[in-house]
């Protein structure tokens, strides 16, 4: 059941980010076209930046799932495999704490909003900020899944 929901969500997320990216292209391209006809909009830049941050933070979860976030790999030349797993676990825990920080203060930031608007639009700026706790929440679930999976495989190897 949970697995089904997870797979379902991954599909939705991928569809969503793909369409948002396409929308981003469309928005900026549209601005080029309407300006060529002498009637530019004032809102396309602001809206594009709003779409952009959502692509980034929803996509960050996709990147985390696919292990696409790069690190400096120097450690792998120095550490024994067993120690490496311990280090990996510790890094995962730190990452989770960081994500919790982003969720907590991100929500705080969204809720304590000041009436600030996205430049050139009437859209409240908290819609930009909201991408951070939302994306972080998704990443938190992914990271928990990964750490759980790793824990099981380590235990499995030892038995």
């Amino acid at each position, binding site marked *: 059941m949970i697995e089904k929901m997870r797979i379902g969500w991954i599909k939705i997320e991928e569809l969503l980010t793909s369409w948002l990216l396409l929308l981003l292209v469309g928005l900026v391209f549209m601005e080029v076209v309407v*300006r060529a006809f*002498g*009637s*530019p*909009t*004032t*809102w*396309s*830049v*602001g809206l594009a930046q709003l779409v952009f941050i959502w692509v980034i933070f929803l996509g960050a979860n996709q990147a985390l799932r696919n292990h696409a976030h790069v690190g400096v790999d120097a450690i792998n030349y120095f550490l024994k495999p067993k120690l490496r797993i311990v280090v990996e676990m510790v890094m995962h825990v730190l990452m989770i704490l960081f994500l919790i920080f982003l969720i907590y203060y991100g929500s705080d930031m969204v809720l*304590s909003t*000041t*009436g*600030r*608007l996205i*430049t*050139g639009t*009437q859209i409240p*700026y908290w819609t930009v900020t909201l991408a951070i706790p939302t994306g972080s929440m998704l990443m938190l679930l992914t990271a928990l899944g990964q750490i759980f999976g790793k824990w099981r495989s380590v235990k499995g190897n030892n038995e």
Partner: protein
Amino acid sequence: GSEGAEGNDGEYTLRLGVTQNEQNAEYQAIYQFKEAVEERSAGEIEVETYHSDQLANIPDLIEQASLGADVGTVTDAAQLSDLKKEFSIIQSPFMFEDISEMEQFLESDLYQEWVEEFTEQGIRILSFNFQLGERNLATTHPVTNAADFKGSVIRTSGAEIVNATVSAMGGSPTGMPWTEAYPGLEQGVIDGVEAHNTAIYESSMYEVINHIAKTNHYQLVSALIVSEEWFDSLPEEFQEIVLEEAKAAGETASEMSMESSNEYEGLMKEAGVEFHEVDREEFKELADSVYETMGLQEIRDEVNAVLGK
């Protein structure tokens, strides 16, 4: 902070950031503010100053101040009007006959009322007297009347009131970062910008525009704002000092801007930019619709009542 910067031993630390560079009047003025406030408070108040958006950009700093961080900035009225609509009147087209009329308004009880109401947003306006210059239309093609201007694609700051003004005068406002305006003008993506002399000259924008129509559709006047929480934490005598010096800083900025505006106008003329006197009444009539579209009629009436108009 637990590991504060060098010499950071004042009781009350404030960080002030502006968008303009180090030579600009805005920065020079907040630097004067820093020195005066530090001296008069015997170092109890410490002010760190930042130029070129180094600390953060203006909307970020306003948000930080309202969230209670010990920061402040110099910002125009349009930016503040997102948080309190009344302020957009200060940047509305052809609202004030001249600077002295605006000063008359800034002395009024109505304005003081707005300032007090604004503290509910967490922001304290220390002074609203940074007169930075007349806003004109700087374009690649000559604009001598409204017909010339019709249909021109104009870069604006993106503020709603400014967009509405440019639209009403017949132009097509487009949102674009100031840094993109230079190549935009050079390549013809846009036909012009609405700006004041110092902004045009100091960012080299005069290299890519050929004409400036002196519409003076509004006077750019900015405010020195700080976090209300920080201001409130000061003893009363320090609050006095800060308010006085903020006013003095605004006066300095205004004088410097006036001087450099005239100097730059000469330099730009030498560089081949043509300045055009225009019939301001024509633009004023066109821009009048702004008050209706922006829903500012009532506020305008209130202000006019104060001014005895």
